[in-house]
């Protein structure tokens, strides 16, 4: 605006803004103030009107309901929860369930999508054909239909718990889900977790040290192997120190169902598989486009330098492809997270499903929707911030 008035300021010797609509600077400010004012007023009007209407119809408002007893049960929870717990805790269960499917889904979809994207570029006609068919098929079927398909698959093709298939000793497949034995609760597990976190930190510093050393001496260090060793070895050592407890919690058929062990329910499995295969179709195209965007000359130059195919992909092609891949990838991650709200259709208790039940019972729709929006916004913004940070980090540094 300052530039504007300076540019057209010939008529005004002192270049000062005049309080008249014929002055461009004043006009610009004036209209912005008016627009902001109208928007603000409409917002205020909407909110106050809503509140009055809610009050006249006798609706309760506010957040007090969050500390009231929820009264409904939830089928799968990552934290302790029962009907005697509060609505607030029920919502927390929902948030964790949504995060669970979103985080696992994003990791798996990225892996599958990348493989298919690379496969589509393969010189092998069969591989390329299968991959293109997959992409076209998956992307052109509505996700909800796919979810129902997987849901029905898991439910109808597997036997009941009493006829469960024992795939491996202690691993049971039935229409109640996959049951696997897990180590029985032991205090050493917490310390193994600590050891794992410590191993992550150690790996980070080791990678840095290896980089510096390679730059200085040209000597390479097997970073990948060492990292795996640290991550697996640390907890293992702690486990051995703790007396190597081997008691397992085996799933056993008792009454209607299996008790004990860890369960992956058919609802979770159907949602996860549906979201992963669907999103992978889109990710594959992004990866393919990213690789194709790297000019052929780069490959030729790399092979002229004598790089083998592995280092060539890792050092030359991928860093450049990633710059094209990351931004659209972010929106696929966001899509996967948001699409997880279709869960209620197949009975997975995600955030939306639980908040819907809550608002149905309390009548506090506005608070309920606000919670859903806040939760998704937080998750989406976190993903965006993380991806933007990563994008900046790998961005081409012009020298």
């Amino acid at each position, binding site marked *: 605006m300052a530039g504007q008035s300076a540019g057209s300021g010939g008529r005004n010797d002192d270049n000062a803004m005049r309080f008249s609509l014929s002055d461009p600077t004043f006009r610009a400010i004036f209209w912005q103030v008016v627009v902001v004012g*109208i928007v603000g007023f409409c917002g205020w009007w909407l909110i106050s009107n809503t509140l009055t209407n809610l009050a006249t*119809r*006798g*609706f309760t408002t506010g957040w007090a309901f969050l500390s009231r007893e929820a009264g409904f049960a*939830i089928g799968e929870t990552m934290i302790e929860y029962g009907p005697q717990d509060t609505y607030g805790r029920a919502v927390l269960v929902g948030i964790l369930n949504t995060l669970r499917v979103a985080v696992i889904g994003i990791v798996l979809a990225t892996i599958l999508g990348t493989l298919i994207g690379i496969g589509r570029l393969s010189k092998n006609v069969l591989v390329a054909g299968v991959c293109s068919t997959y992409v076209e098929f998956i992307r052109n079927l509505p996700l909800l239909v796919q979810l129902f398909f997987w849901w*029905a698959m898991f439910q109808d093709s597997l036997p009941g718990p009493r006829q469960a298939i024992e795939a491996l000793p202690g691993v049971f497949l039935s229409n109640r889900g996959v049951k696997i034995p897990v180590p029985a609760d032991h205090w050493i597990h917490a310390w193994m977790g600590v050891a794992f976190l410590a191993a992550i930190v150690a790996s980070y510093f080791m990678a840095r040290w290896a980089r510096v050393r390679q730059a200085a001496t040209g000597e390479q260090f097997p970073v990948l192997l060492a990292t795996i060793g640290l991550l697996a070895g640390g907890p293992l050592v702690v486990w051995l120190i703790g007396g190597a407890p081997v008691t397992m919690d085996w799933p056993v058929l008792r009454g*209607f169902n299996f008790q004990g062990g860890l369960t992956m329910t058919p609802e979770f499995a159907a949602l996860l598989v549906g979201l992963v295969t669907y999103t992978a179709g889109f990710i594959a195209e992004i990866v393919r486009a990213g690789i194709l965007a790297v000019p052929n000359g780069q490959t030729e130059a790399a092979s002229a330098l004598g790089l083998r195919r592995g280092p060539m992909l890792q050092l030359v092609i991928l860093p450049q492809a990633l710059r094209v891949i990351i931004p659209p990838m972010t929106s696929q991650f966001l899509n996967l997270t948001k699409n997880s709200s279709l869960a209620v259709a197949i009975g997975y208790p995600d955030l939306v499903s639980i908040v819907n039940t809550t608002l*149905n019972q309390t*009548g506090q*729709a506005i608070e309920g929707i606000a919670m859903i929006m806040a939760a998704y916004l937080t998750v989406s913004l976190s993903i965006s911030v993380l991806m933007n940070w990563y994008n900046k980090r790998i961005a081409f540094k012009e020298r």
Partner: protein
Amino acid sequence: MKTKALLFASAFVAVAASLPAMAQQTATSPTLDAIKARGFLQCGANGNVAGFGLPNAQGVWAGLDVDVCRAVAAAIFGDATKVRYTALTAQQRFTALQSGEVDLLVRNTTWTLSRDTSLGLEFTGVNFYDGQGFMVKKSLNVKSAKELNGATICVQPGTTTELNLADYFRANNIRFTPVVIEREEENVAAYLAGRCDAYTTDISGLASVRASRTPVPADHVILPEVISKEPLGPSVRHGDARWGDIVRWVHYAMLEAEESGITSANVDSLMTSTNPNTQRVLGVTGGMGAMLGLDNKWAYNIIKQVGNYAESFERNITPLGIERGVNNLWTKGGLMYSPPIR
């Protein structure tokens, strides 16, 4: 320019301020006025439960709840077909009513204190007294709900069912795992596929599912326990009491007709009846319709086109194998009771 913006703003304020005032000045029911202007009643119903609300292959809706919609339309327009239906799931129904998407909600909905108050609904009566039960496969060999410890149970969200279920297991100190699926079709499919050991809802709903949705109804049993009270009835929004009156008395008219022996078959001949109560009900005397803001032949139209409560019950509920039981008239040992139409 500034003055224009000011004018604009003050117009806004004026409109906003006058809205509640306008509502108060209207003497008749604003909902009724809107329905008349529109030319049909918008009724929120169940699109899935045979006996209560279900469109047939030709798209014609039928059921005990649907008959309430038809009766209200007959009372308003003298034409029971002037209804459009919105099929609502348990989750959607209250928002649909609150937001004005439907004028009336008749969808096997249980009258509870919290729905009556914090959801802003007004229940106008009970057209079916029900209770919650469990259905299991016969092959499971379960004889009582108390034996369901550790069972997986399919249930629809947003229902009283979901809450009663948790209450019942807590009270009896037994455990269960719920599978909560939004739509009834998938819920029943999950139960049939064996994903759940039991399916729970209102016993009328169980009977309906067993009769209309299971390949072999005899393979499924409804357990003897009735774990809750489910008085199902029509509801309207808070804030239009006159509209609530109309819906309330439409239901009573059907009960009164049954009690007085007026049916769709004999209603025409009874127009000349000398019985003072019959004369009042059929609008020959008394001007009852006008008091409701309707035509005086309102009840005549209901009975002629929809029938009395017994006719509606026999047409819709009896085929499910459900007895009149508590839904009989008070004179026959049931709970159905109409206050006097006078």
